[in-house]
């Protein structure tokens, strides 16, 4: 029988993901939308006072060196990590198996590991109008000065909770609950029509 790693994971966006240019794209597209589909999404929570050891564990497992301070993050080499609340971090890897790796590295004395690889959908928006389009949805200052590269933010659009990481100067990865992903994607496409968008 086929093993799980061979069974294709079904994206909640599959039915609405239409590659190609859309909206007002005749004069160029303002944003590109895509679904990176990482293999692993893991949530880590450190007990108070154990944040440093958690950051060390993240570096040990992923090689990502997180800056101190709330909301700091880093994204490189197919991996990303950011703080989204005091002592809480989201870590993403394009490969699967991250939760198991963290389960070994993070003892109960440090904190907890929660696998959300299926529970969250990552939607990427990239391009010169990415800040403009996201500003339609979230009451967050998306300017580079206020939202530095690698940093993460927890926020909400109406009933849709979202964690957002800036993974490039004009690129953001928006993590939403899987069940809301199609609805949010549809809204994001709608909001992107004005600037023209391309689904990669």
């Amino acid at each position, binding site marked *: 029988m086929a093993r799980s790693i*061979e069974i294709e994971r*079904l994206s909640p966006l599959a039915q609405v993901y239409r590659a190609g240019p859309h909206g007002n794209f005749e004069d160029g597209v303002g944003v590109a939308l895509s679904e990176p589909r990482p293999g692993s999404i893991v949530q880590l929570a450190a007990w108070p006072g154990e944040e440093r050891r958690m950051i060390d564990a993240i570096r040990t497992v992923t090689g990502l060196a997180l800056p101190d301070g709330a909301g700091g993050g880093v994204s490189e080499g197919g991996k990303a990590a950011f703080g989204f609340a005091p002592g809480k971090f989201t870590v993403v890897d394009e490969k699967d198996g991250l939760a198991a790796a963290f389960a070994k590295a993070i003892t109960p004395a440090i904190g907890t590991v929660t696998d*959300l690889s299926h529970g969250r959908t990552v939607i990427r928006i990239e391009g010169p109008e990415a800040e403009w389009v996201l*500003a339609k949805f979230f009451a967050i200052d998306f300017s580079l000065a206020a939202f530095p590269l690698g940093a993460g933010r927890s926020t909400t659009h109406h009933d849709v909770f979202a964690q957002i990481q800036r993974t490039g100067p004009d690129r953001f990865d928006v993590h939403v609950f899987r069940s809301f992903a199609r609805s949010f994607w549809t809204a994001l496409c*709608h909001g992107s*029509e004005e600037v023209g968008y391309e689904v990669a």
Partner: protein
Amino acid sequence: MSPRRTEQGGRIDRARTIRFTFDGAAYSGHPGDTLASALLANGVSLFGRSFKYHRPRGVLAAGVDEPNALVTILRGEAREPNIPATMVEIHDGLVAESQNRFPSLSWDVSAVNQLAGPLISGGFYYKTFMGPIIGPLKGTRFWMVCERFIRRAAGLGRAGTVPDKARYERMNAFCDVLVVGAGPAGLTAAKAAAEKGARVILADLEPRLGGSANWSGEVIDGKPAAEWAAAAVNDLRAVDNVRLLPRTTVWGYYDGNTLAALERVSDHKQHPAKGEPRHRQWTIRAKTVVLATGALERPLVFPGNDRPGVMLAGAAERYANEFGVLPGQKVAVFTNNDSAYRAAHALKQAGAAIVAIIDVRADISADMLDFAGKAETEMLPGHAVVAAEGGRKLTGIKVQRFDAASGTVSGEPRSVAVDCLLMSGGWSPAIHLASQAGAKAEWNEALQAFLPPKPTQKWTGAGAFTGAFSTDEAIEQGHAAGLAACSAGRDHFDAPAIEAAPGAPGSEPVFEIQVTGKSFVDFQHDVTAEDVRLAHREGFVSVEHLKRYTTLGMATDQGKTSNVPGLAIMAAALGKAIPQVGTTRFRPPYSAVSIGSLAGERHGDLKPERLTPMHDWHIANGATMYSAGLWWRPQIYGHAGETVEQAYVRETKGTRGTAGIVDVSTLGKIAVQGPDAAELLDRVYTNMFSTLAVGKARYGLMLREDGLAFDDGTTWRLGEQDFLMTTTTANAGKVMQHLEYFLDVIWPELKVTITSVTDQWAGAAIGGPNARAILAACVEGTAVDNAALPFMGIVHGEIGGVPVMICRLSFSGEMAFEVYCGADWGTHVWETLMEVGKPFGLVPYGLEALGTMRIEKGHVTGAEIDGRTTARDLHLDWMLSKKKPFVGSAMMDREGLVAADRLQLVGIVSLDNRPLNGGAHIVEQLDEENPHGSIGHITACCYSPSLGKYIALALVEGGKARHGSRAFTSDPLRGRFGPVEIVSHHFFDPEGSRMHG
């Protein structure tokens, strides 16, 4: 050439022609025209009818302060009323209609109201409400008769009835400096702040930035002011740290320097670009704000001041200079200040004859006399206009000697033939946003105006907003405000040289020429000076009461032109000074805001939907989907020709006969992890969880702190410090908040993390006599027999190559299992189960069958855990641990919560073999005509295929004590009354033999 279009000048593009219609007639204009300017250019003087008296009205102003010329704009079948014609940019295909007239604008039957003036004076509807007594009609009955007619006659315009298909959006913005108003002060402030590197947003409600520079006729820095402004705008547009927002009205100033603004993105276009919204609602969070919102001119109050052809002097100047339109050919000017002389000069230069300047002041400065001389006009100092004559257009005025000190007229009135009268009663700084931001406006005697209060939030003022009415002051202040806004020190500033018309600020304190005749204060609500005095005579002394009684300042223009004159007339009546009477605080919005823009993209588009991992499978397999909160769940998988009842009966029989499968992915799932996880569960659940073995699940009940039942569900112990809590679908969020609250606030010492993992797991419940056999046929890596998987046991294995967790528990009452896997594999596992289950007769079932089976079993859901029931009411007292305290335990034994007459859970059987209704009452008396004495109500109902009867769960007084007794269901709303039997809520297999196999 249009009859009123000037030969040259204006900021319109004369090379291009735009065609539009007004009241069905075709007109043309040019790019840059407003509807008002284009219609004026076409010789139109009558724009609408007034609110109450249906008097003919023309254009009073040229901007957002226009009270008269309200029009309805039609976009397809959608209609938007009450748009000032002065704020409508014309475009090809624009369709506009006048309002408040029938059958036509020029011949309006309701104009007869003008004869009924004394009957419908200020506060008339309050008096109508009070009486009088006429035969059988008195008090409220009289009002009810009048109400029909008043409501038909009242209101401004007519709202549309078809859905508005336009697109609206919301936008969030953050900046260091928000500059409101792009006149010379605002432009200079934005430039100063931008040069210091600040992130600047510059918003102005007009399409053409530049404010007064576009019509002042002044020279700035050697260039015509309009060119200077255009160059300044271009400079700002070229830098990255400035966002320009033309056509954007900043309409609300809220706490924390949060401002609301409405951008009219595509109203001026015949065809919006793809994806372009009509309006965009901005929420701007600004570190500092520069308010450079200018000033609004006040009318003078005299008889006939509302006639078409009577216009604010500054507005006429703007029509002449910005739009190349003459509001009249023979023009008189009536003023109490110097600014109107500039308008006279502008109109003279544009080609009009200035017949006379009537100034209430006897002493006019030499500068102004000299300036007036250039307009080749007759000067009438110490005079006032005492009447404006004409019907649908102005034909002439009457002028009399006037003593400003006493406010009296003398001598014989003299008639002057004019087709346009310009008036100026002084200027009021547009302090609305500052007032909204907090603090009370301050009266300035010299300027005869309210000035902005001292800031209580982070804003700075500049220009006419502060009472500095000259352009050189505006530019100086703008520069200083721009620097101050970004905390930069003053630097050397080469202020540009200004060539401006002469004139001193301030005005003579004359607001009204008190002679006989209808003198309007609030044009839009038809409030006259006499109405204000009537309110005073009737005992109103507070300006707030005056406002509400007369409706002064309460129309869509929010009294932009009427507040100060109204206050002055009230003050005079009271014998007080204006500041002693006080002023009302302004509130948002500054001008009308489209409802669509407030709804934003939530209008017909985004109602977020939560979809389970198997959603598309359900659709593809004929499910009728049903919204449960934000979730969409299968209601039934109907076959052709089946009713809902037939479908759920078939699905229930299939499940109880062979096997059924239902999507339970929507159940709330919360990962509870950490060394103190078990301790937390012991505290929040009524029963014990610390004793639960790893690999086992337990049904749990939570109470609220007040002792009432809160939520139920099973919690699985996956590891020593790792639990998976499930909640009801509806309460998942509430339970999460409940736990977060206790962890954050009450027990921060507990080392527990909680995470919503609802979306991590796809869940399928498979139940029925063949359920175990189906699993046995497809699960690898674990046995599923009774030994390996006892009731409430958990095993891990694989289905179709995908890791799964299986817990044996039952909601249906059958031998049942919940199968969980990663959500992205949910459809794969579901399809595998369906395929394997085919020979076993596996049927998918929806919410209706799920509900039916749970009613048959007497299991409770949110319908019974309704926030009013206790554990005892629901016969769950066996779950109340006596060995430990838990949330709610201290309060659950209160007298009222253990009373014998509480509503308790029972079963109901319909004795007339007719369906029961949720929400129907249970009554004891056979009195269908007058049902009374409710002893409870039905919470859930169905046809039970297992019993062959219509059954229900109900909450009934006395509960168990009534088992076996008869009563009646009463549902007058749905016309249902019939006999029922009260029975145990355990309808089906009360021993649980099927579940345990």
